[in-house]
Structure formats: structure tokens, C-alpha cells
């Protein structure tokens, strides 16, 4: 025999469940645009009969057991992994696009343009060797060429220190995210211990982990108590409510290419931080420190540019032997009214005079190793006296331009290094930078497509669909209405019953 008020209690449970359903739906609809929000669903079960001594078993209505967030941890893990990879590609390609601009595009390749201008002016000098205005133009064209090379190198160095600032900022962000995750771990474990809902907290935590995965490659494990343990390249970053802090320090090692840049280490142990192999931080470091042909970064391009400046200066100053032909350099030439081989080196560094340049090293190679793209300049002798620009192969004769002809050849069609002419050498650098930048962009596009796909899958599982919620809304509304009409039915029944008692 069921209790008298069973119907009303079932009804109230039904109303309650429908109300929770409506509230959940409303919550979902309100959060339709909230980043990182996972839709929530109501889990309800029918309540069995309370009494077991009755043969007429009637259920006692419905009960909401929990409101859960719909989330796939496996998809999250996949997303974090892929996001690290595509963020690295993004950082690399962004940095390389900046680097690429230094070397110019088709129409703005300054170094090539300046070289062509300089060579043309040398040819003009060949037909009017004594014209001081032409000599002055040759000097200014040479200075422009040097300035352009200097600027390219300086810009690269500036970009490198900009990227170093990015590295510092990134390390700061990693620390901040790790701390947030540790705090949320603690809040979640406290909340779940007290039986409260942790849906919103977990969403927040997931969002922070998403951000962190963009910065550095992470490995995330979900512990049984709901904590997320996060490791980078095997070293623990976050465990429970504890985050291990990272710090930047300035590397002072003159032999290393990283000298003057920021290194990263664990604050507690002082050990160097292994950045793993993905994440934006890695992309920055790769462009900042890559100095070999296998890992091309700014130092590599600077050294390429240095080689270019050095090889060109050496060829122009000392002459080159290409095949069986020897082309004389500026040191073999004679300027105007000079009664001996001048030995003037046209290019030097930091505006040193020709003699100072030659005294700067023990042999030719040592001397030219001092010239870099950053400091190449026209030598002081030429700046002070343009009459010293060497044109003739020996003294006497205004129109002896044997030396100048060789110099022009060195600037145009002579292989000054291996099988490369001057413009060929520079072209190799442009091609390398452009190729690296193009492949970084392609890689980013490719990886970003995967990341987007996984993110879409996550959205498909966890995102809010307004159509679905509208359906739920009508469903719960109908359920509520049904329960409410049940309540009025029971109310009538109870009135009848009570009236029966009253009319006695």
C-alpha cells in the first residue's frame, strides 16, 4: 500500500528534475560563447520503491544524480600535443618572416641593388679615371653598399635580442600558468572532497593548460584524485598544488653562440631547463640560437652574411684566382700620381686604414676574419683621398685601367668563392632564408590544420549547440508542465479526500 502523499512527492521530484534540467539548459545557453566552457548534461535516474514489503511496487519518481560536463580527456591530450607543435611552427615562421625582410624581396633586395650600382660606377670610372666627381661617386656608392650590409647585420642582431625578450616573456607566462594550474588543482580537490561541483573549475583549468601547451610541449596525466600532473621533457612542472618555478639568467660564455642571450633553469635545483621539442618557446630558441646548417637561426644567417662580406672584401682587396686566370685586387693597383704600388686595401672594417687592417692579424686569413657584415667599411685611405682608388696596374697613364677592369670582373662574373660570383654568393643567402621561411610557413599551415581539426572535434563533443539546447528546453518545459499538471491532479485528489473527511 503506497503512502498517501506518494503522488505529491513523486510530482515534486519530477518538478525538481525538470527544473534542474531547465537550469542546466539555461546555463549551457548562457555560456554558448564562453571560451573553454564544456556543455553540462543532467544525469537522472528513476527512484525505486522505498518499501520492499509491498507487492504492488511503484517507483518513487525521478532523481538527478549529477550534472556532468561532457569532455574527452583523450581529445584534450591530443589537442595539447598538436597545439605545442603548431605553436612552435607559428613562432618559427613569424620570426623567419621578419628575418626574410632584412634580405629583401625581389624588388627591394638592397644589397644586390647597391652592388650593381657600385659596379656600374666602377665601369664609369674606367672611362674617366681622373674625374674627381666620378671618384667621389664610387666612394659614396661603396659606402652605401657597406652601410646596407652593416644595417642588415645590425637589424638581424636587433631581431635576435627582440626574440630573446620574447623568450623571457614566455618563461614568465609558463610560470604564471603553472601556478594557476597548481592553484586550481588544489581548489578542485577541496571542492570535490566536500562534494561540490567542480565543472567550472575544471573548465578553467583546461583553458590554462591549453594556453600552456602553446608555449611549451607538455605531458599531462590525470591523477585519480582529479589532479593534473604536468611534465616538460620528463621534468615535473606541476604536481598537485605545487608548481616548479623557472627563471632566466644571462649566459656568459664567450665561446658559445648563446653568449649574452638568456638561458633558462629551474629556480630550485639550478639545473638547466630542457625545453623538449615543441612549443613556441622552442621555436623562439631555434631562431635565436640556430647557428648550423642543420638548425638555421639568426646566428647562422649573420655568419652567412659575415662570410659574404668577408669573401667579397678579400677578393676585392687581394684579388682572386679563378681557374687559371688571376684577377688583381685593389692592393695590386695604383691610384692617381702614386709612384709605387699603393697596396691600398679598398675595404676594411670600422673605417681602419689599409695599414691598420693588415696589422690586425698575423696572416691574410686572420686579417680578414676581423671583417664582419656588421663592421665592413671603406678603408680610411680611400675616404681621405679618393685619388687612391686603384685603377692602373702600374704607375703612369691616365687610361691604364687594367686593375680596375679586374676589379669590375671580381664584382660581376668571376667566381670569387668556389663556383659563386658575388651576386651568386648573396643569392644563396636569400634563397636559404626564403626557403627556410617558406617551409616554416608551410609547416605551420599543415600543423595548424591538424590542431584546428582536433579543436573542432573537441568542440563537437563539448561545445554547446543552441538547437540541442532548444530541444532540451522544450523537453524539460514539457516535463515540468506535465509534473505541474500531475501536481494539480493530486491536489484535486487530496481536496476530494479532505472533503470526504469534512463532510463526515
Amino acid at each position: 500500500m503506497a503512502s498517501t502523499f506518494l503522488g505529491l512527492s513523486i510530482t515534486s521530484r519530477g518538478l525538481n528534475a525538470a527544473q534542474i534540467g531547465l537550469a542546466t539548459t539555461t546555463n549551457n545557453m548562457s555560456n554558448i560563447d564562453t571560451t573553454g566552457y564544456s556543455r553540462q548534461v543532467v544525469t537522472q535516474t528513476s527512484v525505486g520503491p522505498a518499501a520492499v514489503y509491498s507487492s504492488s511496487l511503484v517507483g518513487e519518481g525521478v532523481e538527478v544524480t549529477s550534472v556532468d560536463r561532457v569532455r574527452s580527456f583523450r581529445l584534450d591530450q591530443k589537442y595539447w600535443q598538436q597545439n605545442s607543435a603548431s605553436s612552435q611552427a607559428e613562432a618559427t615562421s613569424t620570426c623567419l618572416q621578419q628575418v626574410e625582410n632584412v634580405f629583401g624581396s625581389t624588388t627591394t633586395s638592397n644589397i644586390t641593388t647597391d652592388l650593381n650600382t657600385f659596379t656600374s660606377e666602377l665601369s664609369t670610372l674606367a672611362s674617366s679615371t681622373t674625374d674627381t666627381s666620378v671618384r667621389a661617386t664610387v666612394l659614396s656608392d661603396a659606402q652605401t653598399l657597406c652601410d646596407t650590409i652593416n644595417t642588415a647585420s645590425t637589424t638581424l642582431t636587433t631581431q635576435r635580442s627582440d626574440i630573446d625578450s620574447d623568450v623571457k616573456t614566455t618563461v614568465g607566462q609558463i610560470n604564471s600558468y603553472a601556478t594557476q594550474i597548481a592553484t586550481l588543482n588544489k581548489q578542485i580537490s577541496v571542492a570535490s572532497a566536500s562534494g561540490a561541483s567542480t565543472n567550472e573549475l575544471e573548465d578553467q583549468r583546461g583553458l590554462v593548460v591549453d594556453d600552456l601547451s602553446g608555449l611549451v610541449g607538455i605531458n599531462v596525466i590525470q591523477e585519480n584524485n582529479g589532479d593534473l600532473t604536468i611534465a616538460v621533457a620528463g621534468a615535473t612542472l606541476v604536481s598537485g598544488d605545487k608548481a616548479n618555478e623557472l627563471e632566466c639568467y644571462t649566459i656568459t660564455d664567450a665561446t658559445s653562440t648563446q653568449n649574452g642571450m638568456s638561458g633558462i633553469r629551474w629556480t630550485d635545483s639550478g639545473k638547466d631547463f630542457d625545453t623538449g621539442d615543441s612549443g613556441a618557446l622552442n621555436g623562439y630558441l631555434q631562431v635565436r640560437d640556430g647557428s648550423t646548417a642543420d638548425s638555421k637561426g639568426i646566428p647562422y644567417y649573420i655568419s652567412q652574411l659575415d662570410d659574404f662580406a668577408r669573401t667579397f672584401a678579400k677578393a676585392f682587396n687581394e684579388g682572386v684566382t679563378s681557374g687559371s686566370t688571376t684577377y688583381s685586387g685593389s692592393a695590386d693597383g695604383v691610384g692617381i700620381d702614386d709612384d709605387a704600388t699603393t697596396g691600398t686595401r679598398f675595404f676594411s672594417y670600422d673605417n681602419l686604414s689599409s695599414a691598420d687592417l693588415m696589422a690586425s692579424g698575423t696572416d691574410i686569413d686572420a686579417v680578414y676574419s676581423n671583417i664582419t657584415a656588421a663592421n665592413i667599411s671603406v678603408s680610411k685611405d680611400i675616404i681621405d683621398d679618393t685619388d687612391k682608388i686603384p685603377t692602373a696596374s702600374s704607375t703612369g697613364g691616365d687610361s691604364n685601367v687594367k686593375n680596375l677592369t679586374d676589379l669590375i670582373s671580381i664584382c660581376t662574373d668571376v667566381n670569387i668563392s668556389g663556383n659563386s660570383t658575388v651576386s651568386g654568393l648573396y643569392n644563396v643567402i636569400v634563397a636559404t632564408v626564403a626557403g627556410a621561411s617558406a617551409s616554416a610557413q608551410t609547416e605551420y599551415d599543415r600543423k595548424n590544420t591538424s590542431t584546428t581539426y582536433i579543436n573542432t572535434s573537441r568542440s563537437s563533443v563539448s561545445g554547446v549547440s543552441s538547437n540541442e539546447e532548444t530541444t532540451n528546453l522544450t523537453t524539460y518545459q514539457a516535463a515540468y508542465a506535465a509534473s505541474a499538471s500531475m501536481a494539480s491532479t493530486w491536489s484535486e485528489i487530496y481536496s476530494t479526500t479532505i472533503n470526504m473527511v469534512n463532510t463526515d
Partner: protein
Amino acid sequence: MRITNGMVAANNLRNISKAENRLAAANAAVSSNQKIQAASDDPLVATRAVTYRSYVSQIAQYQDNTDAADGWQTATDDALSGLVDSVTTLGTLAGKITDTLSAADLTSMKTQVQTLQDEVISYMNTNYCGSYVFGGYSTGTAPYAAVSTDVGDTVTYKGGYLSLGGVVSADISDDDIKTFYTANDGDAYNTLTTASATALKASTVATAAAAAAPTDLTLAAKATNAKKTSDALEAAVATYGGTTNLTDAVAADKTAYQTLAAAVTTYGGTTTLTDATAIAKTAYDTASSASAADTTDTTLATTTATALTAYQTLTAAVTTYGGTTTLTDAAATAKTTYATLADVATNGDQKINYNIGFSSSVTVNTEGQDVVGEGINNLFNTIAKLQLALNGDTSYKTAAVDSSGTVTVTTNSLDVSDLKSEFATDLSKITAAQATLGGNMDRVASAVNTLSDASTLYKGLMTDNENIDTAAAATELTSAEYTYEAALAVGAKVTSKSLIDYIA
């Protein structure tokens, strides 16, 4: 798969931004007329662009050079044509001299010859755009000048006497000639002394360079060669005397070597120089007595002269190589000496070369000595003889110096009938210079065509490489616009509708 609002929005946004990027790229291509905006868009196009641009700029420079070369060569050619006329007239005048000419005729012919000589000098001082075309490297000052000296009028080339001991009137005393010769022996043009000093300097420099780098085989070889040349010139100075003209010395060396080579055939290679000299002396004595017996026989006279040359050459060879040397060895040594001197004479050429194409250059100038000669056999000496002949002289004097510095004055007979053929020889030298120049002019003319073809080709390649195909780019732009608009229209429709709109 669930489709959520976030997915739909993100997809829409992604598609719109893709379409927008495509539109931006198509728009940039059309508005800039460039296929690529950055090198990484297509590294191959970028690097090719650098190469083609430098080719185009070089070709423009070569075209400027061909214009300059053409002007210079045309000026030279005009001068040479005028010179041919003047020398032909001189030859005709020389043929007109007979004993029956009246004093008035002689006077007018003298005036004419003087005018013609001035004409020749002015042709040889032709100036093109501020450069004297026949001056070799010394284009700044007029190369030829008529000067009056203590021993009569003569002509200087670049400030040196063309023929110091040249043709002097028989009226001048031997002592005056010797005094003049000794006083001016530093002022002769292109002497062995000058060549020897230059060679010695070059040898010293090369030896020092080789000593500084003991491992450098190239430098060592250079030093050895420079030393060899310097020694050969020193020997030549010893043989012919320092003021002898280099070209004359080369000619004398050639005769000596040819005589020795002929002697090898005549006497057998193993004969010693002493024995050969004795035989040659006997042959000469026989020939000269036969010639003396019959003064009318010109054949005998010629034989005598040849025998005398052979005897003198062999006597000199005994002095140079020692009496016990075999003819074969002496001939071989003489050949080497001649080759070295001839090289020095060739290397002394002051060729002004203009680059008129990739690795091709053309000589634009013709040097004065290649037109009017130098040393004893030059055009001005022939004119001087003609003037003496017009004065009625039958002999003229020349001076020469031997290795000990002793000046000997020789009186030569002046035969009017020989003058015509001497002018013919001078004329053939001018026509040879014209032929060489003509060859170079043809090269410039063909280079002009080649360069204009190359310019068209590379400009075409440059355009094909960098510039857009307008039709294709315009089509792409239209299609990109359409896609973008479609993406916007559809996106706007799709995102604005959901089930919520249809709930009554």
C-alpha cells in the same frame, strides 16, 4: 557528429578569412604587377629575380661601354684614314724628286712636306672626348710634338725622343751629335734601360712577396719568371746599350737568332762558334773581293752584305756565349733571349680594354708606335730623310751607343730612290693598324647586336619570372572576390538561424 555553434562560427570565420587572404594576395599581385611579394612566396622566383636583375644591369653597363668604344674607335679610324692620305702624298712626292727640279719647285715641295708632317702630327694627336687616342695610357696630354734640338728638328712621343740618334743632317759635326746624344740619353722613348728598371722593380717586389710566403708555389713561380725577365733585359742592356729602343733590340735579337739558326744549317750544329766565325770570315773575304772586282754586279754586293751580317753576328755570339759553344746551343739560347724580350715588348703594350659583354673585352685604342713606328724605323725619320733629300743632301748621319756607353756616329748614304719604298713600308704599318682596328670595330658592332638581343632576352626573362600574367591574375582576382562574397553571404545566413527562431 554533433555540430555545435562554436564549430559553425569557427568554420565560418576560417573560411571567410581564407577567402579574404586569397583576395588580398590576388589584389596585391594585380596592383603591384609582381607575382610574389616576399622571397618566401617562391624562393626560386626570388633568387632568379636577383640574378636576372644583375644581368640586366650589367648589360646596360656593357651597352654604355660599346657606345664609348665605338666613339673612340671611329675617331681613331678617321685619323688613320687621313694619315693614309698624307703618307701616300709623301710617297708620291718622294717619287717626284729628280735632278732637274728647279729651285722654286724644291722650295714649294719642302713647304708641302713640312705641312704634311704637321698634318701627320695633328692626326696622331687626335683627341676624342678629352682623351688623346694614340697616347696609350697617357691620354691626358698630346703624345706627339715636333721639337727643335741642337742637331736639327725631330719628333717626340710622350716626351721621349722617338729616335734619339735618328736621322741627322750630314752638316752637323760628329762631336755635336755625340754631345747631344750623351746629354739626352735619358729622354729616349721606350729604351732598354727603362724596361730593365721596370723589370728589376717587378722582380724585387715578386721576390719579396715570395720570401714572405715560402710555401706559396704560385708566388715562387712568379718570382722566378720576374727574375728571368729582369736578367734577360740586363743582358740586352749590356749587348745593345741602355738607350737602344726596346723594339729595335727585339728586331736585332730576332735577326741574331735567325742568323744563328741559319748557321746551324750551313755549318752543322756541332760546329763551335769560333770555327763557324772563321769560316764565315773566309766566306765574307771571298765575297767582298769578288764584289770589289765587279762593282756593277748588284747580286755580288747583296751576297757580300749577307756574308758580312753572318760574320758580325757570329763574332758577337762568340763574345756573348764563348767560342767553344756549339751553334745548336747558341741558337737555342738566342731564341730564348729573343722570346723573353719579345714578351717584354708585348707586355709593355698599353691596351685600353672595355668590357663589352660577359667575360669579353675589346681593345679600343691603337698606340702611336704601332702606327708610325718607333726607334730607327719610324715615319718621321723617313720624312726627315725626304727633307734632307730635298735639300740636295746625299748622306745623313745616325748615332748609336754600344754597351760601354761609347757613342758612334755613322754616315749613311741617302738614296732618293729608296725613299719611295720606305714610305710604302710606313704605309703598310698604318694599314696593318687599320686592319687590327677594323677587326676590333667589327667585334664592337657584333657586340652591340649581341647585347641588344641579350638585353631583350633577359628583360623578357625578368618579366616572365617576376611579373604577373595580367589575364590570369585578373581572373584570379574576380574569382577570389566572388568566393569571398559567397563566404560572407552564406556565413551570415547560416549563423543567424537556429531552432530558437522557430519556437512560437
